[in-house]
């Protein structure tokens, strides 16, 4: 609960930091003045009173700095400062900036293009039901001379297969061997 409240208050302080700086300046000034007045009442000269008041306060600048660190979000402010610095440096070296931008643009573009292709071809499944059960059908003509050559089948052969072939899972080695032997001889070329 406390943490939330502190965080919110720090965020709010970021937005109004100029006004709060003025507030702090005035508060510190009031402190020194009040201390000086009291010292004068105790019989010091105006100069003495003021010096004494400042000494008892401790470092005014350090106090304000510590106060600001406590007030805002110093890490976020540092990040914003670094970003502004980076932007200034880039604006100062347009050649370097251009090289960096072009390099980044090309590499991001190439990566995206390659990934799109790989994604469509290899990663995403095809837009059919049970697409994981799809396979490639080819023919292997056995006999002298043409051993182990793969042949694609044409539309007529495909229709023949569709109407005659028994259903198989088609994924495992044993299945496809069995399927192939069942089909052997049935396929009419």
């Amino acid at each position, binding site marked *: 609960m*406390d943490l939330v*409240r*502190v965080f919110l*208050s*720090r965020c709010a302080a970021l937005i109004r930091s100029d006004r709060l700086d003025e*507030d*702090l300046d*005035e*508060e*510190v000034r*009031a*402190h020194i*003045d*009040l*201390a000086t*007045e*009291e010292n004068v009442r105790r019989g010091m000269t105006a100069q003495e009173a003021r010096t004494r008041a400042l000494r*008892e*306060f*401790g*470092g*005014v600048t*350090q*106090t304000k700095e*510590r*106060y600001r660190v*406590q*007030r805002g979000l110093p890490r976020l402010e540092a990040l914003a400062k670094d970003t502004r610095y980076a932007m200034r440096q880039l604006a100062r070296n347009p050649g370097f900036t251009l090289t960096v931008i072009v390099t980044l643009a090309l590499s991001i573009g190439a990566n995206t293009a390659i990934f799109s292709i790989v994604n469509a071809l290899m990663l995403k499944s095809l837009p059919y039901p049970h697409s994981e059960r799809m396979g490639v059908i080819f023919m292997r003509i056995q006999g002298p001379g043409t051993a182990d050559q793969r042949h694609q089948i044409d539309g007529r052969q495909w229709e023949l297969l569709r109407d005659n072939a028994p259903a198989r899972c088609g994924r495992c080695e044993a299945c496809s061997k069995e399927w192939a032997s069942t089909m052997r001889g049935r396929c009419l070329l």
Partner: protein
Amino acid sequence: MGENKSDVLQGTLDLMVLKTLEAMGPLHGYGIARRIEQVSDNGLSLNQGTIYPALLRLQQRGWIKAEWGLSETKRRAKFYSLTRIGRKQMTQETENWERIAGTMARFLAVSD
């Protein structure tokens, strides 16, 4: 300077501020600092400026609130006062501190 003065332990300043506000009512930063110096009989090495981060910390937690007002000498100053949450937390912090102080006292008594 400061040879017989103790440093202010982390967290104790907050409680001193709360107790001061409870005893004195709304008070500006200088008044709080002076009061702490007087009550501690100048036995603390404390820059008066140190109380401002502490006051801010307490405000952020919602334990105290600040308002601009006029001092006895008609000077514009920020006056701090306890909130309801602040009062409740102060009771709890006081208990905490008394427990720690009691434990410490027992250790010191043993070594005598």
